[in-house]
């Protein structure tokens, strides 16, 4: 069906354009377009994790119990002081090792684990990581890294909610729990959104690093498709075209940024309804 359609359009546009159309819609290229799903899953999954880690981090930072507060500050400081690439490479490796260690204890017993020197300690503890597993780990790593950023934004936003509002609410007889959820958190979003939008943009750009975790994402496919081919069996013989493919990715991410901006503007309008801060109405 698709091939027929392309042939028709090709005839209508002329032979050269028809050939290029057929080329950019062959299986290889379709696989490239389809690999966008990894980027989107990682972005959405990573953002969800980041908000969860962010709320957790903000709660820790606000805690009156000092060790919790230190833990929150430690988390955000370490993550901010270390490049995101390092975390994204480190976390899946460390997590895999941790899981295999636990597995080794469960399946092979402590004596066997202590006796072996290699890795993993026993065969049964081998964890075969598939693309799906890597994707989940990429989401968690992105969540940890940008959760620290989100924690700071959320912490700041909670501090920005005016104390008077909360006092008024409790004066009206709302319980502390109601005051927290219905007033503090509800109003917090309006203050946090600009910052969270910035965190989302950073996270979106960080999804370009998925190929470092052996996920065949848009970046890896672009490199493969653009690489020069001198071998007719492999497909169309062409010189090095990578810069064209990377240019497409460059534009793709700019487009994603534009869409995100529109989305967050709409969200901001929604969140600040009825609030006396700039950006309302």
């Amino acid at each position, binding site marked *: 069906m698709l091939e027929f359609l392309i042939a028709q359009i090709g005839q209508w546009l002329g032979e050269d354009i028809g050939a290029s159309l057929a080329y950019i819609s062959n299986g290889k290229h379709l696989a490239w377009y389809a690999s966008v799903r990894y980027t989107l899953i990682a972005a959405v999954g990573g953002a969800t994790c980041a908000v969860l880690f962010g709320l957790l981090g903000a709660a820790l930072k606000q805690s009156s119990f000092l060790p919790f507060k230190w833990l929150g500050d430690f988390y955000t400081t370490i993550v901010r*002081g270390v*490049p995101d690439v390092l975390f994204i*490479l480190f976390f899946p490796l460390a997590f895999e090792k941790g899981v295999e260690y636990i597995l080794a204890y469960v399946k092979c017993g402590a004596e066997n684990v202590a006796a072996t020197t290699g890795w993993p300690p026993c065969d049964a503890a081998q964890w075969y990581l598939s693309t799906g597993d890597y994707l989940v780990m990429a989401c968690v790593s992105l969540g940890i890294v940008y959760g620290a950023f989100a924690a700071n934004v959320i912490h700041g936003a909670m501090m920005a909610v005016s104390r008077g509002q909360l006092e008024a609410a409790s004066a009206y007889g709302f319980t502390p729990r109601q005051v927290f959820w219905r007033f503090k958190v509800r109003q917090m979003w309006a203050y946090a959104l600009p910052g969270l939008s910035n965190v989302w943009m950073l996270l979106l750009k960080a999804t370009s690093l998925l190929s470092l975790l052996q996920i065949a994402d848009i970046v890896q496919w672009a490199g493969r498709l653009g690489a020069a081919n001198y071998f007719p069996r492999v497909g169309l013989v062409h010189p090095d075209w990578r810069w064209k493919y990377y240019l497409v990715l*460059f534009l793709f991410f700019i487009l994603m940024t534009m869409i995100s901006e529109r989305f967050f503007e709409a969200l901001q309008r929604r969140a600040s309804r009825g609030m006396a801060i700039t950006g309302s109405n």
Partner: protein
Amino acid sequence: MFESLHQSAFIQDVIIFAKPALFNLYFALASIPAGFPFAVLLALGKASPNKWLALLSRGYIYAFRGSPLFIQFFMCYSIMLAMNQSLWKPWGIDHIVLHPLFLGPFVLVLNTSAYAAELFYGALKTVPKGEVEAAQAYGMSRWNVFRSVTWPHMLRLAWPAYSNEMVFLFHATTLVYFTLPVINEQKDLMNKATDLFERDYNVFLHFGVAALYFLLISILIFWVAGLIQKHLNSHITGDKVRLSFKPRYLR
């Protein structure tokens, strides 16, 4: 026994990583002297009354802030490579242009200047109109107004955010050798960490020491930036600068 063995492995790593850390530091330090003036020019361009200049600067800043550095690296390298035969070779500069020690900072400059320009632009918008008008009323030339009113105000206001940007830039140097070829033994912290990891699979030790280097150098950058900030604000307050880590979580 185990403890001392572990300690020596740690110290060994600290020694091994010292040279690779210099490469990351080099990439960041080489990018700042070019990135800073370029960012100022971009910010002035974006604020310029000239419509085309403003549009061009705005577009540049948007594009380079809106796309990942990882892709900018790949793109710039492949474009530079494609222009080698027609431009760099005839000019005799191909050995410089395509060298990671040049191309790395080059791409980092393109990237960081867009982020920094946005910060400077934000600061420019807050320069009090009255001060500029007063200076003009004194008969100052446009250059003099810029030098004595706009520039100090902009710099003082944007500095905390700019010091933050320098730390982001330093972290971004990790991407250089993920995208550009490695010449001889010129390896950076991430190269070295993955190299060592592939030998003994001790992920916590090698990545941990690399992370420690990043953390310490980040703190150092904040400290130096703090000293400069103190100098910029010397006429306002005399606050003391300690070796501190006060990052922003925005870029």
